[in-house]
């Protein structure tokens, strides 16, 4: 769910002596610098170690470009599909009461609990040449495993809950009064959805989309199982990073990794902006009520 409730804590309550406060803050900052900042900086430093020319050449190589293309296509399928599903699931779960609702909500989160490697394995068992549907598919000349289709399917599985889990708690909290009012005033269902529901959840939706996209473009474990690592065909950007790394082409590997790291940084910035905006809106709404 989007961040904490927007309460601002009172630093006046800190009873810790100044020296203790300072040591806690310094320890925490040092820990974050050591464990988060340093590895992030290392990606860019290693990527640029042999200069911009090498960096540009490896990012613009045909294999890298084809990996970028497949990564973009994968996200372009998985994100809208899971957004559509997320909206439908949120409507069913947050607007109606029915038996088994909490079980269904738990099942939607299931892919988060499945280790990435297992997420890949199940699709090999399903679509692989020796899988359940393998024979049927190969008779018809359809290949899913070791083909882009498998990568997309595994990514859809992995990113399945992102949008739904942002929308469900928010829509439940908002209640359905505004929608009922719109309907009773004669608005159609589409109009109600587009003019009432969607605007009310737009920031949570954006938040879910950003996280879903970051994971769709960055997924590694599940995708590496179903990909087969065929250059120029079934490599996404994270797999490209792995292949070059295992071939000791560190400059190329870290150059591709810096693209993904930049995506992560942009994701974090947009995410923080959305959180900041939501906090501000909530604070404004709370002030209006008083």
């Amino acid at each position: 769910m989007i961040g904490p409730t927007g309460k601002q804590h009172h630093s006046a309550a800190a009873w810790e002596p100044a020296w203790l406060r300072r040591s806690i803050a310094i320890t925490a900052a040092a820990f974050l610098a050591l464990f988060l900042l340093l590895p992030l900086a290392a990606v860019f430093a290693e990527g640029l170690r042999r200069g911009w020319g090498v960096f540009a050449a490896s990012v613009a190589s045909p294999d890298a470009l084809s990996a970028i293309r497949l990564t973009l296509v994968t996200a372009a399928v998985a994100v809208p599909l899971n957004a559509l599903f997320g909206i439908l699931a949120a409507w069913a779960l947050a607007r109606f009461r029915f038996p088994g609702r909490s079980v269904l909500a738990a099942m939607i989160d299931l892919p988060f609990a499945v280790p990435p490697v297992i997420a890949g394995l199940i699709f090999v068992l399903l679509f692989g040449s020796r899988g359940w549907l393998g024979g049927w598919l190969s008779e018809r000349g359809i290949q899913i495993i070791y083909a882009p289709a498998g990568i997309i399917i595994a990514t859809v599985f992995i990113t399945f809950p992102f949008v739904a889990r942002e929308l469900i708690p928010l829509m439940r909290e908002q209640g359905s009064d505004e929608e009922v009012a719109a309907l009773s005033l004669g608005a159609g269902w589409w109009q109600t959805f587009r003019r009432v529901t969607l605007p009310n959840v737009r920031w949570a939706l954006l938040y879910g989309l950003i996280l879903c996209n970051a994971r769709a473009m960055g997924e590694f474990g599940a995708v590496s199982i179903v990909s087969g690592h065929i250059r120029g065909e079934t490599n996404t950007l994270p797999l490209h990073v792995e292949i070059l790394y295992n071939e000791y082409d560190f400059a190329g590997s870290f150059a591709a990794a810096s693209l993904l790291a930049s995506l992560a940084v942009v994701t974090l910035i947009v995410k923080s902006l959305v959180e900041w905006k939501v906090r501000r809106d909530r604070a404004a709404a709370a002030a209006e009520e008083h």
Partner: protein
Amino acid sequence: MPRRLTGRLLPWSPLPGFGLSLGATLLYLSVVVLIPLSTLVFKTAEMTWGDFWATVTAPRVVASYKLTFGAAAAAAAVNAVFGTLVAWSLVRYRFPGRRILDAMVDLPFALPTAVSGIALTAVLAPNGWLGTHLERIGVKAVFSPLGVCIALIFVGLPFVVRSVQPALEDLDAEIEEAALSLGAGPFATLRRVILPTLAPALLTGVTLAFARGLGEYGSVIFISGNMPMRTEITSLLIVTKLEQFDYAGAAAISVVTLTLSLGVLLALNLTQRLLSRGR
């Protein structure tokens, strides 16, 4: 149709779309998640009990459980301490760069795991920024169980910080002040007032980090060196079985791993319910 259904079975709702949205959700969930997951069970069921048991208790597999469990538990313990300190600083103190640090905490969620893996390896390798210093004092952080643990600390950190943060924000300053003004020392206030309030959130964060560690793959395989019996995690063993076309073996180990990690999460869920009922 939905109205008739809601009229009898369910509380009536004036909103449309119940049948459509629930039907679509169930269909999509089944096709994308439930049916694929069920293949694990069916594939494993093709094995005899003896084969299954021999596969999941082979020495190399057991060594990988020990490593994965031990490293995930150690990483969760480190994160329990440092994650709480990070959350504490972010919520209670104001200092320059706080917002940036706050945003940075989610980096392990946002950074693809393969990138995390090679980045940590680069920093900790004997010629890396930290590795040179570690080597001088005789610590081997790559291609060792320590490396696995460091990778799991990295991926687990946000779980602890993001669980503890809201609990710290909800901490009632007045109760803290009351405890202090009634003569409780800072240590007693911490132990009697703050820690009990924090404990459920901390437990949640630590358990989520632990469960994530059990299944982690991308960030670990580059730093661990993947030596059988020594630094081979269970996820990698599943991949190895698959590469040898031993599908049933891969499925069997997966069933064990998945049962353990779902079991941990289920236990967390039940504990949370018990705790909230106790209040």
